[in-house]
């Protein structure tokens, strides 16, 4: 029987095989500070596990795409849909098994060696997770369901692993030990991180949107505003935070009321100020682009019908600018989530403080404890925005309607 191979999946699967074989799944270190000895998947896999490798590999690289030269079946046939859905399921189970293997080994180590010994997830594990994510993304794209359903399926890939985590499997892994050691601090840091992001984004929008609107009214403004914002964007974040400390401290000294309210050269003030400055460029730029692509005819008609300028802005310009504004806002939010990590250096707290704590005390898993939530937050924000953007797209643009001839559209007496 001819083996059909899907190129993208095959490459990923091959890389996965390479990662599983050549990179360590785990690292066992005598204490938290050392890097540890590598432990490979090959040594952890039970005997019967070997017999699964080849069939799983073969299944993974099967094309589940429909139509074209591969398949004689019509695009939305049930069996091909099932085949597409099977891949994420396979990946989900694979991830869970990998995690379970790692967790079990960690447990063994914890039981047989000193309490200081740490088992960390190694490069091999993370590579496999990344590849699994890529393959799921690819598989999910070909499901002909709504984007919400697709995101759901994608989230489900992580579900079995999360379930294992929830019931306590993996508690001997170094990453989880770090979490347990500073559980309270972690949640406080996470909450703080979100607060910082929100405190920066809201003023950016309130400042950025009117600036964008001002640019549509006065052509001169846009000529010096954008170069200024571009320059701000290029200043390295740590430098900007540092540069803001002195003037803000001076301000706090000059106006005691400010310092009583908590304003100072360190902490939230320089962090939020810098974050707002960084977010302005994407917001103003996409706001301006959005406002500029509002059809002139619509604005003229609105004016001629007796709408006030404010009504025109809120009812016509802003809704029509949203499909362009929202991607810019999404960029700003994701960027801010990442940059907030650095604000820990000026004492603002957040997940970055865990990260730097780990960096300075040479504990890699503590760094991961800070970084992984940041990455997940960014991915979550990205997905939320994607949903919002899909929601504001004019209805029917993705339908067959838009491409149908006028004749096909109408069933009434009009031509």
């Amino acid at each position, binding site marked *: 029987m001819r083996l059909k191979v899907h190129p993208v999946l095959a490459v990923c699967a091959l890389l996965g095989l390479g990662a599983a074989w050549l990179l360590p799944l785990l690292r066992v270190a005598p204490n938290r500070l050392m890097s540890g000895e590598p432990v490979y998947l090959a040594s952890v896999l039970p005997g019967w596990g070997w017999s699964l490798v080849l069939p799983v590999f073969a299944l993974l690289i099967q094309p589940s795409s429909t139509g074209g030269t591969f398949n004689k079946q019509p695009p939305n046939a049930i069996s091909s849909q099932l085949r597409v859905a099977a891949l994420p399921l396979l990946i989900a189970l694979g991830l869970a098994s990998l995690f379970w293997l790692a967790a079990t080994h960690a447990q063994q180590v914890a039981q047989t060696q000193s309490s200081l010994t740490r088992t960390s997830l190694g490069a091999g594990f993370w590579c496999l997770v990344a590849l699994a994510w890529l393959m799921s993304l690819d598989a999910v794209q070909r499901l002909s369901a709504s984007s919400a359903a697709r995101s759901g399926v994608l989230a489900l890939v992580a579900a079995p692993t999360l379930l294992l985590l929830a019931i306590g499997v993996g508690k001997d892994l170094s990453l989880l030990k770090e979490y347990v050691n500073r559980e309270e601090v972690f949640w406080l840091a996470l909450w703080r991180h979100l607060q910082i992001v929100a405190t920066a984004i809201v003023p950016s929008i309130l400042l950025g949107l009117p600036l964008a609107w001002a640019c549509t009214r006065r052509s001169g403004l846009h000529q010096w505003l954008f170069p200024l914002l571009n320059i701000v964007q290029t200043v390295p974040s740590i430098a900007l935070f540092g540069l803001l400390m002195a003037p803000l401290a001076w301000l706090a000294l000059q106006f005691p009321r400010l310092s009583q309210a908590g304003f100072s050269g360190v902490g939230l003030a320089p962090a939020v100020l810098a974050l707002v400055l960084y977010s302005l460029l994407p917001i103003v730029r996409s706001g301006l682009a959005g406002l500029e692509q509002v059809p002139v005819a619509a604005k*003229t*008609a609105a004016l001629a019908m007796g709408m006030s300028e404010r009504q025109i802005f809120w009812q016509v310009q802003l809704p029509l600018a949203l499909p362009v504004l929202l991607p810019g806002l999404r960029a700003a939010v994701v960027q801010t989530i990442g940059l907030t990590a650095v604000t820990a250096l000026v004492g603002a707290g957040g997940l970055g403080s865990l990260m730097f704590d780990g960096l300075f005390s040479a504990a890699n898993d503590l760094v991961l404890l800070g970084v992984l939530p940041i990455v997940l937050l960014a991915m979550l924000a990205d997905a939320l925005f994607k949903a919002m953007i899909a929601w504001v797209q004019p209805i029917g643009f993705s339908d067959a309607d838009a491409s149908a001839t006028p004749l096909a559209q109408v069933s009434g007496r009009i031509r």
Partner: protein
Amino acid sequence: MIEFQNIGKSYGGVRAVEGLNLHIELGELVVLIGPSGSGKSTALKMINRMVDHDQGRILFEGREIYSFDVRDLRRRMGYAIQSVGLFPHWTVERNIATVPHLLGWSKESISQRVTELLTLFDMAPELFRQRYPHQLSGGQQQRVGVARALAADPAVLLMDEPFGALDPVTRTALQLELKRVHQTSGKTIVLVTHDIDEALLLADRIVLMNQGQIVQVATPLELLSSPASDFVLDFVGRSDLGIKLLSLKAVEPLIRQTPAPPGSPTLAQTASLREAVAILAAQGSGVLSVLNAQQQPVGSLHASDILASHAHVRA
């Protein structure tokens, strides 16, 4: 209803409109026509203050337009433009309901009005009200645009080259529809166009402008039969003046009671003389059989009668 008293407007030293005096009666369909740069669009836009005049006064329903609150003034006038300007993010229903919404109408009255207008324009309400502009053809979009302009039952409807962007077939259909709407509603309409045939078809009175000034104000028939100058003559089409005149005349008065010979080509009773001549020429016949709405012959039309009736037209 609307009165221009010695209106003038300059754009940086260039006089766009000069010494404009015009009186528009209630229920009239007045067409402003002229070559590019004649000031016809400017004159129209001065009515709803999209352009503000420098000199003179414009009176709307007896009041100087500057004494109105500008938004209030605009809500009392419908405005339809060539690019339509429908709001892409709103349904047809919400688009049409724009001004009623601004005026605070109740949901039921709005819904009723939308149904009324869609029916008026021969668009099945239940099929079209939830559609979005990008799901409509060009002709449908302009219909919705005009419906939107009429939604709050304005005192006057202003139209700036509304059919210019449509294909000839759709354009003719919409022109006929507008004529029908005007006849049934009795609205005052001021329409700007550069298409003389459109003007001749629709207008009660035509205002021909050139370089910011009025050259002639007349009914279509008057304009064709007694043009005020060579410019007017050239503008209306010196060479096919006769044909144009024919399209303004109905078949009715020239019908003979005697039946046409069998096998003669047929013509509807409501047709214009221009259509009659076209069929006569195409079929190579001298007589047409005229049919009524029920397709029954009511008489005959002879080519010789047509030519005789036209003899007095100046070449």
